[in-house]
């Protein structure tokens, strides 16, 4: 997670929002705590929404499944 955290920070530093969609999705997939999962999924979804990214609908569905949208 530390490596992923560094990668996320690097993506933020270069404002690479497309990368952030997948990186935050990965972060969500690496934990089982629902609150933490939804915390990361929220980031992934928001950047996907902004970009019109093809993953936006799937990310929305995952958040919706936990009653978070």
């Amino acid at each position, binding site marked *: 997670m530390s490596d992923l955290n560094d990668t996320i920070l690097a993506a933020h530093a270069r404002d690479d929002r497309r990368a952030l969609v997948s990186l935050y999705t990965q972060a969500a997939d690496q934990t089982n705590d629902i609150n933490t999962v939804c915390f990361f999924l929220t*980031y992934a979804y928001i950047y996907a929404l902004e970009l019109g990214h093809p993953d*936006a609908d799937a990310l929305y569905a995952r958040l919706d499944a936990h009653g*978070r949208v």
Partner: protein
Amino acid sequence: MAKHLTATDLSSVQRSVEQANGLPNAHYIDPQVFSEEAEAVLKCTWAGLAVGADVPNNGDAKPISFLGMPLLLLRDKDGDLRVFENICRHRGMQLVSEAQNIEGAIRCPYHSWCYSTKGKLVSTPHVGGAGQNTHPSIVKDDLGLNEVRSHLWRDVIFINITGDAPEFTEVHRDLIARWSEFDSPMYHGGHDSKFELELMANYKLAVENYCESYHLPWVHPGLNSYSRLEDHYHIQEPNKYSGQGTLVYKQLQGPDDAVFPDFRGLDEKWNTGAEYVAIYPNVLLGAQRDHCFSIVLQPNTLNSTTEHIHLYYAEPKTSEDMRSRNAHLWKTVFEEDIFVVEGMQKGRHSPLFDGGRFSPAMDGPTHNFHAWVAGKVQEHRDKQDA
């Protein structure tokens, strides 16, 4: 208690042109009077903001400051033009700081609330706590972007800030009918057919100068060879619009006598006729057989204005060389007007100047504008007093 501590005396402005004075100096140099006038003249009416060609593609967004108000011009995903207040409904943060294409949603750079290109609030991340993206008190349907009433005509986007003006098509029915022959498609000439000019002057002076042909032989001697003073006529509709027409419009000619293609279906009178109309308060339009133009006057402050000039043609593809020459020609003409507009602005600091007198023969269209402004300001004062 008097509500108009800075109220100017406008009684002489609305006299007949033979007896009238122009607007008092304060309407050009006094911030308080300008503020009152802006409410009456620029916010309660249909003011020009931009042109559709500023946002040619779906999703294109352009932030524009209008009288200090942060606005966002947007072509939504379906191609419809919309104008919003450029602020998030959460903390009032400016949403878009530079022209860009919105690929998906508008994301506020502060807390990332997201809006669709139609202004709908679509996501409120963490609004109910970390990872909780809803809250019962935050109803998305109630918190879309504040939309400003707008209307598109001849590719100019007009806005009514107060939202209560009569319909644009009602206000400008006469002019729309007058130019109905020009309703055919018009195509922006592209990057070589737009330019901006900065004026250190109140926007009204640009309108006043545009309305009349009196100055043409003195300020635009180059036009005199083919567009002489005596070949012009006045256009003046009280309380509506004014300008000038010419009977000797001459087309630009390229190599081998090439000309721009004509707009379709025009009456023969347009073979040599052209009209130039100020649509109050701040849009200047020109209609000719083979091209037209719009000038949107952006009133930055009471004494600084940006002219946004755009040229349009009857066909999507025209000669690049001729377009470039045509833009250069118009730019030269409009640049020639700058010193008179700025000179009149300086003149407004003369305390003994009484607004000036009009030539009854030549200044009718300019007086028409003054009288309209005075009428709108008076109307506004009457509403305040009611």
